C-alpha cells in the first residue's frame, strides 16, 4: 500500500481535526496539518520499519513539534496547543500502529 494513503489519513486526523480548534485562522490549520504530516509520516515509516527506535520517543517528539507549530504558526497559546497536540498525536499514532501491524 502506498505512502499516499498514510499521508491522506494523517492529513484527515491532523488537519481536519485541528481545524475546529483554530477555525478563526481559516485554511491555515489545514496547511499546518498537511505539511507536518508530510514531514512526519515518511520519517515515521522509515523509523518504524528500519530501526529499533522506541516509538515513545517519536510520539513525544511529534507532540513537541506540533505544539511548537501550533504556537508559532497558528495562535500563541501554549495551553491550547499542548492538549490539542497530545490528543491528535495519540489518535494518529494509534492509527499508525493499527495499520502497520
Amino acid at each position, binding site marked *: 500500500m502506498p*505512502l499516499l494513503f498514510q499521508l491522506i489519513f494523517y492529513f484527515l486526523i491532523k488537519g481536519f481535526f485541528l481545524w475546529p480548534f483554530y477555525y478563526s485562522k481559516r485554511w491555515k490549520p489545514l496547511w499546518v496539518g498537511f505539511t507536518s504530516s508530510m514531514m512526519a509520516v*515518511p520519517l515515521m515509516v522509515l523509523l*518504524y*520499519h528500519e530501526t529499533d527506535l522506541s516509538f515513545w520517543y517519536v510520539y513525544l517528539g511529534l507532540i513537541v513539534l506540533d505544539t511548537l507549530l501550533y504556537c508559532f*504558526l497558528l495562535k500563541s497559546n501554549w495551553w491550547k496547543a499542548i492538549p490539542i497536540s497530545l490528543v491528535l498525536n495519540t489518535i494518529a499514532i494509534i492509527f499508525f500502529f493499527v495499520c502497520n501491524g
Partner: protein
Amino acid sequence: MQNFENCRRPGSCLTNRNNLSAKLLLLICCISLATSAIADAGFSIRRKHAACIISFSGTGNLKNYKLVNAYRDGAINDEETIYVQEGGKRWEESDRDIKLLLVDTATNKATDSLQFHAKDYNLHMKISGEQNGKLQYSMDSTKAVYDYLLLNDDEKSDQFRRNRILFITCSVAGFILLLLLFFLRKKKTGDQNTN
C-alpha cells in the same frame, strides 16, 4: 511594467510574493503527493501471518537421551531451528502442532512426549535436563514479527533505492514547506510592524 507599477502601491509586492509562494507550495505538494503514490510504505501489513520459529538451547544437558521431532528424522541440537510455517497463502492449511519425543539412546524408545501448538509466537525451549525419563525444560515465547523489509540494504534493487529516495524527498519537502510557512509568517509580521 504593470508589476512595477503595482509595487508602488503599499503591500502589492507582498501580495505578488505571496502568490508566488503559494504556487511554489502547491507545486511542491503536488510533486510530493504524486511521488508518494508509488512508494510502498508497508501499510496494512498483516503481521499475524508471520512464520513461527522454535529454537532450542541446553540439549547438551540430556545425558543418554536425545530430543527428536516426531515429524522429522534426526536428533534436535542447539543449532536446530524449526520453522513452523513459512508464511504465505496456505497458512490456515499448514501444520502448526509440534510434537517432540525424548528418546533413550540405549533402548531407542521414547520415554516422554510433548506437543505444543505454535501460532503467532516464536518459542525458545531451554532444556535443563532429564528426570526419570521426563524432559525438564522451560519455554520462552516472543511475538512472531513478520519480517517485512521496506528498504533492503543487502539487495541493491531499484525498487528499494527508489523507495528510500521518495521517503526522504517527501519528508524534506514537508520540512521545507513548514519552513516556508514559518518564514512567510515572520515576514508578514515584520512588514505589518514596519507599516
